[in-house]
């Protein structure tokens, strides 16, 4: 499966509206699989990771038409946490599309974006 995520911008101010759309192009044998969309932040660095999901939606779950369509979405972003690129800790925001594979590895496609105030 492939998925493309298009966002109306790369950097967003806290509290603003994130708009985008997801185009799904599944392989024929994956048409019946569940596909989820999430807008989330997660930490990375040398320690354990943490994450928070601010938007979640099931794009398709057995519906072949939905599994190969374009889906528009919008979500009001929170004020925190802001994107941060530290040395020991980073906070990254992403739009994530996940196709669940019950007997294998899930397909995951991320589109990163920045949440922060203008410099």
């Amino acid at each position, binding site marked *: 499966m492939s998925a493309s995520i298009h966002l109306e911008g790369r950097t967003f101010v806290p509290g603003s509206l994130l708009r985008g759309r997801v185009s799904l192009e599944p392989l024929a044998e994956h048409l019946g699989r569940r596909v989820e969309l999430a807008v989330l932040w*997660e*930490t*990375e*660095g*040398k*320690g*354990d*990771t943490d994450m928070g999901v601010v938007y979640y939606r099931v794009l398709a779950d057995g519906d072949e038409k939905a599994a190969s369509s374009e889906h528009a979405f919008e979500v009001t972003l929170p004020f925190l946490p*802001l*994107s*941060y*690129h*530290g*040395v*020991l800790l*980073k906070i*990254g925001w992403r739009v994530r599309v996940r196709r669940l594979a019950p*007997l*294998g590895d899930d397909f995951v496609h991320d589109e*990163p974006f*920045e949440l*922060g105030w203008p410099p």
Partner: protein
Amino acid sequence: MIGPGRATNPFSAARFVPGRIPWLARDPQHLDRLAARALAPGAQHQVVGVHGSGKSTLLAHLESVARRHGMTVVRFRGSRGVPMHALARVALRGPRVVLVDEVEELAPFAFTLVRAFAASLDASLVGSAHRDLGLPTLLHARVGAETAARVVAHLAPEASFPGGFEERLARHGGNLREVLFELYDELEAGTSAEDRVR
């Protein structure tokens, strides 16, 4: 961008937590062979190795294989004690496996009880430890320079490290996790490794 570091770092811990990357042995059948032995009904094995040598990674992959085969899996860390409620699930019918990380963190009698419980139900059991527990050994986990290179190439496909990894592994006592953190630091510091990533 806010912050003094890179936006992303391919050697972040979250990218190589056990089970996140494939089992990167030279022989593609290696994991299947280990799983066939480990998941046989009633089998009890140990995985022995130093910190960062892939013991928990193997357990995570065995869990994945077991679930794929419809087995009931109970996996826990010895440092957190025996989760009785989870272990009770092993009593359910059907094939089942108990996977224990950090066995030496358990009280000796607790592990003996877990083993006896698994044996009485014909469940398979695999424990990981830094020292010999007296069980048949499924794997002596060791990371060689070649395996390290495969892991690094998986995490950062466009990077190249001409010096190889033998010296780095030796410096960290065979602990691949520490080697990856060293690469993390080099990227953040913008030292030589950063120039190798495009």
